């Protein structure tokens, strides 16, 4: 078979053709999957919200507010009963202190600030160690590590090694610290927001934006 000669024009044309076809096919696939990806993300988010909150009838409008002194916003999802009363708020929160950096949680609060549930949205913590955080902090048999039903405003939400009230995951203290950091960030943001509701109106944001991380 005759190879094409490596002269300038041939090389230029080849690279142009290859990159052109590549970008065209990527654009096509992106177009095809965009809606599916968006739906998958929204569905995952809805599922997480339902999992962390007590029973509710409908979701109120979500909004984003940055935690104190930070720029990355947290997203709050108020849940309402049939009469329009708030029965709980799900907060999508994060931390950057994980063993492998960033991870995200969904934490649910009842109106008095008690944690009604949590779910790990995405993480890269060590499998078998930090990855246990999905079950560890909801173990009803071990009240020292269970955070469900506790109020971060009343209980010291740091690991017992640091003088707090929550037992860290065995051999994964860093992941545990990061986990509690994310919960505290959610709680403080939610608290500030709830306390201030009488005054300022929260900055509204549509739900599809920024759900993708």
């Amino acid at each position, binding site marked *: 078979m005759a190879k094409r000669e490596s002269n300038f024009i041939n090389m230029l044309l080849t*690279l142009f053709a290859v990159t052109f076809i590549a970008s065209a096919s990527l654009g096509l696939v992106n177009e095809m*999957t965009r809606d599916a990806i968006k739906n998958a993300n929204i569905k995952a988010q809805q599922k997480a919200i339902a999992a962390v909150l007590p029973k509710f009838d409908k979701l109120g409008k979500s909004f984003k507010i940055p935690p104190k002194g930070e720029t990355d916003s947290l997203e709050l999802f108020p849940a309402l009963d049939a009469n329009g009363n708030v029965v709980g708020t799900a907060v999508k929160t994060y931390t950057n202190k994980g063993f492998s950096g960033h991870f995200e949680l969904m934490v649910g609060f009842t109106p008095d600030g008690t944690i009604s549930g949590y779910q790990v949205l995405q993480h890269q913590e*060590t499998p078998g160690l930090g990855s246990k955080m999905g079950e560890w902090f909801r173990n009803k048999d071990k009240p020292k590590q269970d955070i469900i039903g506790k109020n971060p405003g009343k209980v010291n939400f740091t690991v017992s090694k640091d003088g707090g009230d929550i037992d860290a995951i065995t051999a994964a203290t860093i992941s545990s610290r990061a986990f509690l950091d994310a919960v505290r960030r959610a709680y403080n943001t939610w608290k500030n927001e709830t306390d201030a509701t009488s005054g300022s109106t929260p900055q509204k944001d549509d739900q599809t934006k920024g759900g993708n991380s």
Partner: protein
Amino acid sequence: MSQMKNFTKGFLKENPVFVLLLGMCPTLGVTSSAINGMGMGLATTFVLVMANLVVSLVKSGIPDKVRIPSFIVIIATFVTIVQLLMQAYLPSLYESLGLFIPLIVVNCIVLGRAEAFASKNTVWSSILDGLGMGLGFTFALILLGSVREFLGSGKIFGLVIYPENYGSLIFVLAPGAFIALGYLIAIINKLKKA
């Protein structure tokens, strides 16, 4: 070389992980459990087959001096397609593999096979080569993942074999990956000689 050999050589004789020692980064990174190893292996297999197919089709049209950049663009395109499709239709698998998928681009196996095999052979041989190499890679990742999961947390594919407390954590972490891989390579070499 017969067609059958193109397919089977990837499993043992030229296994990309145990014999060619290619693609160590994803190998060591994802094999903390058997299921992760399998997902990564199958995704790589798809990319390998598609990249080999396309490279062997266009090989005579690509001048030698720009063949590497062209191959990389072709490979990267398929990786991104895999990533988008997985994100859209298999979100749970994407969740656990997300970080490693872009790594397939820099996996030497894919470029290695495009360069060493597909650019010199027919389309059909190249597909078989890609399939064999990919499945060999998958087999290696599942084996390594199973060993690490078993020694580290007492499970294989999430099935509990013995209580987790007796597992030795080091096998789930990076050093365990090197140790387990070293022993597996030694065993495979021994088996190959026998």
